[in-house]
């Protein structure tokens, strides 16, 4: 429910380890709302979200330690450098990351030499990459990705694909709301189409 409007109903699924769920649907069909419900940021009007059999609202903060959410807003601070952004968001998730590790993660995501540039000087795609670098350092089992492919170039999309494949083969779960097909070669791929 958003305001008075019912966006979707009768959406149900359960995912095993190593599953990739692609949520598709027209604009306004509720992809982002679904992801926010899965994050626990939005309470569903009816129904429940369960993680390892327990309701996420009763799990509270424990649930957040097993998930990484990348929203369509980047979630990085313009005033901080790429490396600082990464270290702080990792630190807040309870993972101590030193400068070298942050630099390595940024290099892996294709931002070599950009780690000490303030984020406001980075391009849109580069800022997106900074937020994706969080996936590399947080070791969460569940990835929730909202429209992450926008403003990424081909190289970066290939990189995202390999990151997700790696995550799935390590027993992780990824749920992505996107219009673009990722064509994963590994893992168990499922689709969910939200009707308007």
């Amino acid at each position: 429910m958003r305001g008075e409007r019912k966006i979707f109903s009768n959406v149900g699924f359960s995912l095993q380890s190593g599953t990739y769920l692609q949520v598709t649907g027209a604009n306004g069909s509720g992809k982002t709302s679904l992801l926010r419900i899965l994050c626990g940021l939005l309470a569903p009007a009816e129904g429940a979200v369960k993680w390892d059999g327990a309701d996420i609202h009763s799990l509270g903060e424990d649930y957040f330690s097993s998930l990484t959410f990348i929203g369509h807003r980047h979630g990085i601070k313009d005033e901080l450098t790429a490396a600082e952004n990464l270290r702080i968001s990792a630190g807040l998730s309870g993972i101590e990351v030193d400068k070298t590790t942050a630099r390595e993660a940024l290099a892996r995501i294709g931002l070599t030499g950009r780690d000490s540039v303030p984020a406001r000087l980075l391009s849109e795609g580069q800022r997106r990459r900074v937020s994706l670098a969080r996936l590399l350092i947080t070791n969460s089992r569940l990835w929730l990705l909202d429209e992450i492919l926008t403003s990424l170039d081909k190289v970066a999309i290939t990189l995202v694909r390999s990151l997700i494949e790696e995550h799935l083969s390590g027993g992780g779960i990824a749920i992505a709301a996107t219009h673009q097909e990722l064509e994963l070669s590994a893992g168990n791929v499922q689709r969910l189409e939200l009707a308007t």
Partner: protein
Amino acid sequence: MLRWIVWRDLMLAWRRRADALSTLFFFVIVVSLFPLGIGPEAELLRSVAPGVVWVAALLASMLSLGRLFANDYQDGTLEQIMMTPQPLYLIVLGKVAAQWLTSELPLVCIAPLLGVQFGLSNKTVGVLLITLLLGTPVLSLIGSIGAALTLGLRSSSVLISILVLPLYIPILIFGAGAVEAEIIGMTAASHIYLLGAVFVLALIFAPWATAAALKISVE
């Protein structure tokens, strides 16, 4: 965990020094306007000083409160922070602490200098300093509730003032009252104790209320 959030906000404030400085200058200018407007009558100035300094501190804190969560909300970092595995209560406490350190503490530090403008004695300035030290954290704590409630609304800064300023009244009464009592030769202790009690209450309940308001605003 708490140190990460405080460190982050302090660093952000440092990178945007102009914001914190503008709050400080606002406070200095508002307080300085009164001696100019009222005239150089020492007795009159001394009697209005406590009220003027305290009201200016309340208004100055309005300026910085709008930024407390709004910037993080806009760039999506607030959601990220709320999804970290730690109680929202602590996160709010960390952010409020950083806000106090960057926006309120400078006011407290410069207040003795402004007291001189009003011809306050050293002892009175001391009482003013104590009340500000006890009272300004309460302003930050109570103000954070208003900032969280008005998050994402248009003209939120006006709304914050309407919501929060009435809640500041007890602090204004006890804060200015303590300094006034000192000026007329009575003991300021009772006012200061009450201010301390309000501080403890706000420390316990305000972050909890702010956390609840944030959860609603982020939906």
